[in-house]
């Protein structure tokens, strides 16, 4: 009836005796620090090597750098913060934080990386679409004469508006009177009817 054995259960089940008072030895502290410095030098070295073109890691550079950072963080947590000798509750709290951060990150990526599932263009900001079409138009206009309104209806526009006709008001746009190469970037602004994208912002 009287659970006297339970009496001190809470304090016992939750910390490893006097482990909470573990004292780090000098050697351990110094070794940890050495490891940290070494890893720092390594990651910086890799970065410089890649910039100099000596060691092109390509797609690997990001994961490698993050992996090194992860190891460093683990070292700090385990030894400097003494998590290795600490109670399980504290370790759980720390790990839990990272897990939930991962949840935040991954679920947000589920959105930001897959916005084009149904509609290819809803993944791309309007200004980027405009810039692309303007660039294509600019490339064409280097070769043919820019006053040709055909170059004002860009591939992207036709993708957006399958039935779009070449816009007569385009001829009235201020852009073409300027140097040919400049016609392109301004075109979307100059022809409001060509695409509403020109009006975004403000």
């Amino acid at each position, binding site marked *: 009836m009287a659970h006297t054995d339970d009496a001190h259960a*809470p304090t016992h089940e939750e910390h490893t005796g006097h482990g909470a008072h573990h004292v780090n030895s000098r050697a351990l502290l110094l070794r940890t620090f050495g490891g940290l410095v070494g890893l720092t030098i390594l990651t910086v070295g890799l970065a410089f090597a890649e910039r100099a073109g000596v060691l092109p890691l390509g797609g690997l550079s990001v994961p490698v750098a993050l992996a090194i950072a992860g190891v460093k963080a683990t070292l700090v947590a385990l030894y400097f913060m003494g998590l290795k000798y600490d109670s399980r509750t504290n370790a759980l709290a720390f790990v839990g934080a990272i897990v939930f951060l991962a949840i935040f990150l991954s679920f947000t990526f589920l*959105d930001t990386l*897959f916005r084009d599932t149904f509609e290819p263009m809803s993944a791309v900001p309007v200004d980027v679409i405009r810039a692309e079409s303007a660039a294509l138009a600019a490339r064409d206009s280097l070769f043919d004469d820019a006053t040709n309104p055909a170059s004002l209806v860009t591939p992207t526009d036709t993708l957006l508006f399958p039935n779009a006709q070449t816009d007569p008001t385009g001829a009235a746009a201020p852009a073409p009177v300027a140097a040919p190469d400049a016609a392109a970037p301004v075109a979307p602004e100059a022809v409001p009817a060509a695409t509403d994208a020109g009006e975004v912002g403000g």
Partner: protein
Amino acid sequence: MATLAAPRPASAPADTTRYPAGHEPVHNYLKEPKGIWSWLTTVDHKRIGIMYLISVATFFSLGGILALLVRLELFSVGPTIMGAEAYNRVFTMHGVVMVFAFIIPSVMATLGNFLLPLMIGAKDVAFPKLNLLSLYIYWGGMCFAIASIYTGGVDTGWTFYTPYSSSTSTAVLAMGLGVFTAGFSSILTGLNFIVTIHKMRAPGMTWNRLPLFLWSVYATSIVQILATPVIGITMLLLALERILHIGIFDPALGGDPVLFQHFFWFYSHPAVYIMILPAFGIISELMGTFSRQRVYGYRAVALSSVAIALLGFMVWGHHMFTSGQSPVSSVVFSMITFLIGIPSGIKVFNWVWTMYKGSVWLKTPMLYALSFLFLFTIGGVTGVMVGALAVDIHLHDTYFVVAHFHYVMMGGTVIAMLGGLYYWWPKMTGRLYNERLGQISAILVFFGFNMTFLIQFVMGSQGMPRRYYDYPDMPWLEPLHRISTIGSWILAAGLLCTLINGLWSLKRGKLAPGNPWGGATLEWTHATSPPDPHNFARTPLVTHGPYDYEVLFGAGGDGHSSGAPVPNVEVGGPQEAEKSIDDGTRQPT
């Protein structure tokens, strides 16, 4: 040496305004130390809980008045009592005040603060000064909020969606600062409670003997710790957006407004569980005590709280099905949303089944608990409807959603909190409330609430968008709006009854016995009403579970068996009683 409670007078004493001779409580946390200053500087969790209670009650009335204004404006088509800009500010203020100033601290900071140490047999929370600090931080945040209201209020809706919130000319900055600050108060409370539950439990208070209220408080604290920092950084970024135009959320500068919604809802959806989980706990206590029966499936109920808390972090995207987020994430979020419905269902079934072969006592708190079961069930199933992808496309941002979350927030949290207040009122104040008035208020609230919000499901699915000042395009909705508005008046009347009841009981209420309901948790069995400033004369030794009503004997639980402030139950037989009973009349040695 402790003795059993002194023999009680056979009949309740004639004069119920004075304690019978030999039964005056030695200490009363309300009375000593005296003086307003002693209250403002106290670190007693009970007093802090009371001060929180007064604060949130104030903000609840403020938010309620705003709600009445909103309903009144919608009473008929066209401008009724205010202009569009005023209306936008009013409903925004209603949302912000109710969510950040009232519901989030509501149960946790009031009942949680008051009961947590009492229920685990501790003298106080782990960090009493931090507790007081969190109260002051909360007050600070509210000062910002009030300043914002004073300077014209905010018109963004409580969700602060960019780019509207970063471009509007209203006082978003002050309000954001208020939310930011209040967040820290919430964090400190959660932190304090987790540590208290882990480290401060009395001998014998094992995890399996933890009252279910504390299980949900524990789950809630986890959510507060993990989610609240994110609203902090979100509000910070919003402020920088307004001051420096950093453009992270501003499409005109290359940012992405949908990202803001992710940030906002990563906090605000778990926040929904910060609001509702403690209510679950209260209901568990009420169902147990007023059925005088073990809460059915203790483990299932306890663990479902934790499950809800953790799963609650993976469903925020269901607020964004039509926001232009990727279909892939919509599908995943919808999936997990359905999973989280299951633990909530389990709870409801267990609560209902707790009454099976029990002894159901229809006192005011139980009336509230039962209306909670009904209202929360409706809130839950409509949650399933808006969680279904295709259906949400039609229902999103309509009155259907408004009705749904009012059924969960108001029909859930507020109703449960009222029940909890009635239940623990004798313990908090040492006085009994007026039963008749209490029952009237419970019935008024129940009917008023359903009249207000049930009809809004219909409006919503018929296409009435939320946050509308006027509905010129749908004049045929007018009669439904009128029913809803009239319902809101009945609801207000019911709440007013509760307020009057409380004030009445403080003045004229009968003195409460130590254990008027025959509860089996420590605050009833081991503490006086009202409790000693140090809670217990000595640390109790816990020898029974929170719902082991069978080990309680004596004339407990008729509400007025004795005028004595003494817990009039004995625990687990004489020897145990010898060890653990504190009759509250013992002088300190």
